């Protein structure tokens, strides 16, 4: 569960409001899609949820833990995939996964079993012994995904996760997100691929200039726009206003 209450974040001594009094709740068993134009505040919001940035105001509770009071418990609950898969290039894939396993206290037998499954699913088994430096962008993205899932997090937060993935891997990721949700866990992700959001999400939030301008199920969003045909039409109309 993710609970964001009246969160604001600004840069340049308050001159640029990246997130402005944002409140929303994502329930267990829910896939939440976070949409918005470039620079709307999606990544800033995600970074605050996972503890990479501190909000100026408001509070964020993840899985029942306040990010300010229990940061370690929050981080243990979260699996995070950033928009840019930057990882230690001078480690091998397996060293990176072992490192994360040690950080999240995943026992050896469990991490071996989970990693093997995920590596097989994302077709990375053969390459995992090589330096990450030799990986393509998509392979790095897959490794970050596997790393984020290694400790079976209750909350899965992803920033533009489909970028760089081949169609099969993108399909597998969508399957994982659905399965995660069926297990009663929470998925929060940002995307520019409206088609994916429309088909995958239980609810969608649209952010513009730091403010949440719309939030609800696909049907609820359709009611807010004149052109209700696709999410693309709804998105364009709402973000133009």
């Amino acid at each position, binding site marked *: 569960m993710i609970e964001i209450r009246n969160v604001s974040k600004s840069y340049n001594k308050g001159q640029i409001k990246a997130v402005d009094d944002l409140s929303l709740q994502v329930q267990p068993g829910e896939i939440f899609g976070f949409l918005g134009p470039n620079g709307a505040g999606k990544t800033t919001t995600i970074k605050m949820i996972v503890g990479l940035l501190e909000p100026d105001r408001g509070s964020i509770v993840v899985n029942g833990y306040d990010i300010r009071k229990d940061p370690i418990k929050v981080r243990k609950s979260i699996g995070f995939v*950033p928009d840019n898969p930057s990882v*230690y290039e001078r480690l091998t894939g*397996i060293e990176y996964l072992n490192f994360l396993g040690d950080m999240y206290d995943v026992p050896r037998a469990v991490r071996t079993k989970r*990693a093997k499954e995920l590596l097989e699913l994302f077709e990375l088994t053969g390459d995992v012994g090589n330096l990450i*430096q030799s990986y393509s962008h998509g392979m790095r993205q897959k490794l970050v995904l596997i790393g984020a899932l290694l400790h079976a997090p209750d909350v899965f937060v992803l920033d533009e996760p489909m970028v760089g993935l081949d169609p099969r891997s993108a399909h597998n990721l969508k399957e994982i997100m659905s399965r995660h949700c069926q297990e009663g866990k929470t998925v929060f992700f940002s995307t520019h691929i409206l088609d994916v959001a429309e088909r995958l999400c239980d609810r969608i939030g649209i952010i513009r200039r730091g403010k949440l301008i719309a939030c609800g199920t696909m049907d609820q969003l359709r009611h807010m726009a004149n052109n209700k045909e696709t999410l693309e039409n709804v998105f364009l109309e709402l973000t133009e206003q």
Partner: protein
Amino acid sequence: MKTWRLVVLHINLNFGLSVLRHHWKTKDKKLLGQAGITAVVLLTAATFGGMYYAFLNMTYNALSALGHGQAVLTMGVVTSSLFVVLAGLALVVSVFYFADDLEFLVSLPLWPHQVLAGKFATVLVNAYLIAAPFAIPTLVLFCIREGMGPSYWLTSALVFLFIPILPLTIASVGVLFIMSVTNIGRHKDALRVVGLSLLLMLALGFNYLFSSAAAGMENIQSILRDSEGLVRIVGRAYPPAVWATRALNPVTLSSGVLYAVLFAVVSTAGFGLMMVAAHYLFYKGLIAGKEVSPGRRLRWDELDFRFSEASPIRAIARREIRILVRTPIFMFNSVAMLVILPLISVFTMFMPGSDTLRALIQSGVARQTIMLGAAGFIAIMGMFAPSPASAISREGKLFWISKMIPVTAADQLKGKLVYSFALTALAIPILYLYSLLVFSWSALEFVAIILLGMAGSAPVIISNLLIDLFRPYLTWDDPQKAIKQNFNVVAGMLAGSAILFVLYKAFEGALEMGLGFWPAWTVAGALAVLLALLMYAYMVKVSDSLYRRIPV
């Protein structure tokens, strides 16, 4: 024109001129911070330059009495050139081959030498900063002591402008060659560190052999009889230093102009040669260096044996060591340089003419001082080898991982401490070699040196980590900037030196109070442990709140 635009762009990026302009426009407080940092760096350089001036002044007094005052000019040029080569090697490798923007630059419709000219400009500006604390005191001292006129100032400005060019082009050509021939197989990074280390040893060995051979070839009287004898001896390893001396202190005006032109022309020719080398070798080393050939593909069943478990602190220490060892620029700067220089100094003690020095250091009088120096060497290794003042900075854009993992900042820093101590321990085999070959320490003496050295390194390492914790530099675009162009490293050196000075004073004070050598040794060790514990407690207390404040 394109080359010039590249030069301007790189100087802008290297010194963050656009960022400064932005801070100025937005009246950002960071501007004040940057001004403060610049002031501290300039002050440190000026203090260092002042110390070198005092040393040169003494040397000048001695030499001018023999009619050889101008030899200080040759010494100044040789010293600054040698430092440009030594510091330039790592700088050149990092800027030419590991900067973030290289892939973008390679894709532009430019010749390799044009791209390299832009990169060379940033290296050159940094080389002026390296040469200045040696060259400027020399030029000023000679002017004041010899009462030189305006023409001297003009010539000295010209000489200063050309001083770093030739040594830097020599370092650059060496690096271009090494990087283009080490693209062999999967272990090219390791080969590169070895190649660069050989280049460093070659530069030092060349300098040493020439100066010692020169001293052996001619007797002191014949050197002193010739008014330029000493100049030629000092400049034998590097003849352009002799030309610079003759340009600055000419017999006739025309000969001065001639040598100034010769110095400038040879430096320019060196630059031209480097451009030609760049045209053929630069992209060969660069593009092939980016190609990472994957190893053997793993089978599914093999994975069972590849997963292991460790405590978070151990895992962090292991990650740090792996990254250091596998990043050529970190490895060369942090470890290779600090192992090579002491090893070379061991061997120089067995060169012809070193018998007197060896006898002196093995005598009882110097023995205790040398033991103290050996312990100091371990502590200094703690400051430089793993460079704890850049332990967080080196993570750069990957610091998001450290902020995300569910491990307290205190535990993460403990991992970095373990790693720092592990690398500091590299000093032990070097000292053991010294003991075997030169000092013949007893087992007790050797253990005492290690204990005091490791104890002394503890407050040095923790103070350096604290400095980086308060203000890590994460936005670097080439790895050299994280370790060498990082103010935290300068501040860490100052803090580390201050701590070692306090420990030395405690040792000296204990001796003056009538305590014997070993009790004074224990006092210094106990004070080091106490300082380390206090700093450690403070670091653990503030680490979480400081980690949270670091933006990613």
